[in-house]
């Protein structure tokens, strides 16, 4: 998996997906009678891009906003500010009919193979839904297409008549992938697609996703909390914390020498199947933060273990700056 060669700055080649300073805030009512309103700053000024036939890995723990980001990009939730462009077109400025057409081009694979399929619909009907909505095929032609898709994802053709509960997690996930592929997308947002699966099944589905990418020329925005999985699939990785990108760059560089203290802690926390090698472990104190009340300055400073942490960290928000070729980190000290 090689990093795609980028043309030099003069050529106006567009990335397939361009997210620019995207911000998504929700209001939530809490308290006894919904009297107390709080603002959840789920995504705070995220800028990223996914090129054609490229995979960008997005890594982060719960509460970092990666799922909200995925949904915003798919226009399943509303944005608060910023832009998201697909192939040059502003996703949030599309009229309903245009949006519907655009939906063919970006699809999503969800994390939970149990919840992402309608339990009362057969697998075949679920896959066919996309074909029906976009008038891609009907009747016998649609049935044929469903069979082809099932085979492409490694399921047997008679899976079409079965209901989700008759299948295993791995098979359901494959069905979800087939459903997304039915409308012939160019970009697939994979939101923790293998996190709910067993190790051996994970490997099967990851291999499938890699094969599909090669065969269909797909782009992936691959979201996961599992750093080892992301390392395997993505040549470029972005790390998210409390609604912001804190580090991004080529996977090799990022994993070998992370610049941001959070990335360093994250990598050190991943248990590696090697009993012999001792690695220094950075243990982060305290709880992961709540996106309701992000701290001023650097969002990570309350838990940061960096020796040079100081007042600047606590009051000034760091921007992403280049620390090594292609590698950017948002840290005053890193």
């Amino acid at each position, binding site marked *: 998996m090689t990093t795609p060669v980028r043309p030099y700055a003069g050529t106006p080649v567009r990335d397939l997906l361009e997210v620019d300073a995207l911000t998504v805030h929700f209001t939530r009512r809490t308290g006894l009678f919904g009297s107390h309103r709080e603002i959840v700053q789920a995504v705070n000024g995220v800028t990223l891009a996914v090129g054609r036939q490229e995979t960008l890995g997005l890594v982060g723990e719960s509460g970092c906003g990666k799922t909200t980001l995925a*949904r915003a990009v*798919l226009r*399943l939730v509303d944005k608060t500010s910023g832009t998201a462009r697909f192939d040059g077109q502003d996703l949030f400025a599309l009229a309903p009919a245009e*949006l*519907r057409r655009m*939906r*063919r081009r970006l*699809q*999503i694979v*969800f994390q*939970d193979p149990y*919840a*992402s*399929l*309608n*339990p*009362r*619909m057969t697998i075949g*009907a*679920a896959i066919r*839904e*996309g074909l029906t*909505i*976009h008038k891609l095929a009907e009747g016998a032609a649609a049935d044929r297409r469903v069979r082809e898709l099932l085979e492409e994802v490694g399921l047997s053709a008679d899976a079409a008549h079965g*209901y989700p*509960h008759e299948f295993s997690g791995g098979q359901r996930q494959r069905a*979800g992938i087939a*459903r997304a592929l039915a*409308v012939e997308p160019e970009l697939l947002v994979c939101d923790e697609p293998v996190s709910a699966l067993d190790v051996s099944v994970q490997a099967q589905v990851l291999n499938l996703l890699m094969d599909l990418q090669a065969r269909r020329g797909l782009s992936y925005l691959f979201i996961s909390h599992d750093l080892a999985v992301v390392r395997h699939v993505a040549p470029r990785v972005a790390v998210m914390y409390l609604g912001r990108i804190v580090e991004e760059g080529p996977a090799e560089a990022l994993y070998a020498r992370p610049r941001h203290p959070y990335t360093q802690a994250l990598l050190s926390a991943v248990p590696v199947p090697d009993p012999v090698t001792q690695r220094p472990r950075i243990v982060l104190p305290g709880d992961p933060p709540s996106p309701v009340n992000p701290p001023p300055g650097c969002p990570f400073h309350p838990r940061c273990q960096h020796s040079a942490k100081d007042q600047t960290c606590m009051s000034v928000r760091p921007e992403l700056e280049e620390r090594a070729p292609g590698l950017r980190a948002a840290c005053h000290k890193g």
Partner: protein
Amino acid sequence: MSRLRGLWARFRARRIAVAGLVVVVLLALAALGAPLLAPADPLAQPDPVALQNQPPSPEHPLGTDRFSRDVMSRLLYGARVSLGIGAAAALLAAVIGAGVGVAAGLGSPLVDQLLMRGVDVALALPRVFLLLLVLALWEGAPAGVVIVLLAVTGWFPTSRVVRALVQRLREAEFVQAARALGAGRWGLVRRHLLPHLAPAVIVAATLDVGNIILLESGLSYLGLGIRPPAPSWGNMILDGKDQLFSTPWVAAAPGLALLVTVVAFNLVGDGLQDALDPRSEK
């Protein structure tokens, strides 16, 4: 349709629910076949003097009332009334309730609040009282009006259940997936919501039938529902109540029929509820 078979298997496992179902089916057959099964014309009064208040006999299996009308025939035709009104009103209530529930569940918070607070107010009003009021003022209301009234005063609980379900389903991942595929609102409702709502609505409607039958009988007993001489279990009980000890069969037959019917519908409703329990569907 392996799911239907699975459903039937689970339903069948509860024998008491099956007993209820058997009764309901028999009742439906009796009601439908009333013209064939009834020994006599329910309205006919062959001999108001000689044949009045006859105890059960071969010609009159359930005896006659004080107008010498055959009780059994009246019971069978009364079954038509009860089941007919019960089913029609329950169905209508289910449709209205589901419609409002979906509108509230899918609509904006404003729409939702308006609809649901309206329902809250309506639930605070006593159903029986409303029915009594309208029917007392409207002399001789036809059966159709009774059905509509019963439905219109009874859809509120269904709407709340449906709304809660729809709100939950709205956030379900498979609904998000359908939206991501480009499904429009109607598509979502038709393909994803309705199949999930159907079980709850069917259960609510089935349980409601028993209620409605009782209500209708009560109204008829009070002289506000089906007016004599047309037979209804309610007005049959009215007829026989003054002679409970001298000619018990006149009131006992419809009374017992009511009891058995309502219990049967409740058993079927409960059985359906258990069989449709999403936990058993995995």
